[in-house]
């Protein structure tokens, strides 16, 4: 079970990243859950300044970028 968190306050970029992450999970067919974290103090707890950011199983993998579906797939499979 992969836990994927999208860190961002809810701007269009964060939504795109969340959609891409969901698509990546679906395409890989892995058991995974995409969750959006919009509370700014919780985002800070991850050590992220540049939103949107993506964390897999609690570890921040990327920040400040909208990753493509393929890029997210690679991160999940690591």
């Amino acid at each position, binding site marked *: 079970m992969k836990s994927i968190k999208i860190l*961002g*306050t*809810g*701007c*269009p*970029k*964060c939504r795109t990243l969340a959609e891409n992450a969901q698509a990546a999970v679906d395409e890989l067919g892995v058991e995974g859950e995409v969750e959006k974290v919009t509370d*700014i*103090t919780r*985002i*800070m*707890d*991850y*050590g*992220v*300044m*540049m*939103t949107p*950011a993506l964390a897999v199983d609690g570890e*921040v993998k*990327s*920040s*400040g*970028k909208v990753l493509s579906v393929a890029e997210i797939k690679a991160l999940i499979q690591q």
Partner: protein
Amino acid sequence: MNWRREWQVLAAMIAIFLGCFFLPVGAARFQGAIIEALALVKWYAREHVLLCLVPAFFIAGAIAVFISQASVMRYLGPRANKVLAYGVASVSGTILAVCSCTVLPLFAGIHRMGAGLGPATAFLYAGPAINVLAIILTARVLGLELGIARAAGAIVFSVVIGLLMHLIFRKEEAAKDAPEPHSTGGNDEDDARPLWRTAVFFAAMIGVLVFANWGEPTDAAGLWQAVWSAKWPITAGFGMLLAVLLIAWFGLRWWHVALGAAPVVILVIALPQQPLWSFSAGVLALSIITATTPGEPAHWFEASWGFARQILPLLLIGVLIAGFLLGRPGEEGVIPSEWVTRFVGGNSLGANAAASVLGAFMYFATLTEVPILDGLLDSGMGKGPALALLLAGPAVSLPNMLVIAGVIGLRKTLVFILLVIVMSTTSGMIYGALFGG
């Protein structure tokens, strides 16, 4: 139920219901205001969208893609030089705040993990006012003078506010537990291109923007007039430079560019008196070519389109509201001009303070402050109060005060808001005294 979110919906519903209930359909002023709103939208569509906003979106997109945000964040991190951090925080909004939604996370990050409260508040104050789209639109719609005053005022006073916040709260700020910031990393692409190439590339784009929008000067002789009469050849020159740079440095295929340039050249020859056609063809060609070239060019187009998609609808609504409330230049909307003159006319302390307080509490969606202020100026608002509102407006609003309070606490937020109002009022007074005339 999450009441923090729900009460906003409830309040909006009640407001809309009451508005419909008492809708003054048939009243002359109301009907006139509707016509004004439509006329103003038409005027913006003709004057500001193609030549100004569209190139501005491409520039904002290029900033987001070709300039490494991470390299700027180094100067705002925990090990940053504290003096330098204030300077960087005050100007980095140009690069970091192109999307208004990134301002608050960056503010929270700089405060908690980076250079501290002072630089964070400096960034929060200046960021929204000096992002590249805001400066371009302010200068285009409200005039170059106010555009420059807005940027300069935001930069100078953000440092003052940051330092004051730091001094007032220096004891509390000493001890904080901070998580280690996550490094963005992966900026190899930026290192591959020397700085001067990036600078030339941006200069070419800014050249297109500036000369395409060159206004007709009031006196019929001199350098400005000469530039004005040659504005289209100069714009075309910068456009060609841009095309060459894109082929040489950004991997666009030359025959793509040649195919894209052909209709532009044909339109220049066929319709020499109507440069808008060839300009539009150029924009279209640039969009198609960048969108279909994988890698950086495609990212550039996506980022530019992202800004356009996000901002244009807001701006359309903002212009409609401004036209409805305040009317076109020389006309009146719902609000009579004398009210505006009485409330924020001239350059008195009261007018400047009123504009600052109004700006601080009102919520302006990205860039909508510009058309609204344009309407206010035409209705008799003084130049000083206009700057005060421009400075206080985007920096804080009621919704983002709640978020800021969650990050730094209620007391610091109140002090910050107070400082914003005082500093914006001061800048307005100074500007109004110098340029109010």
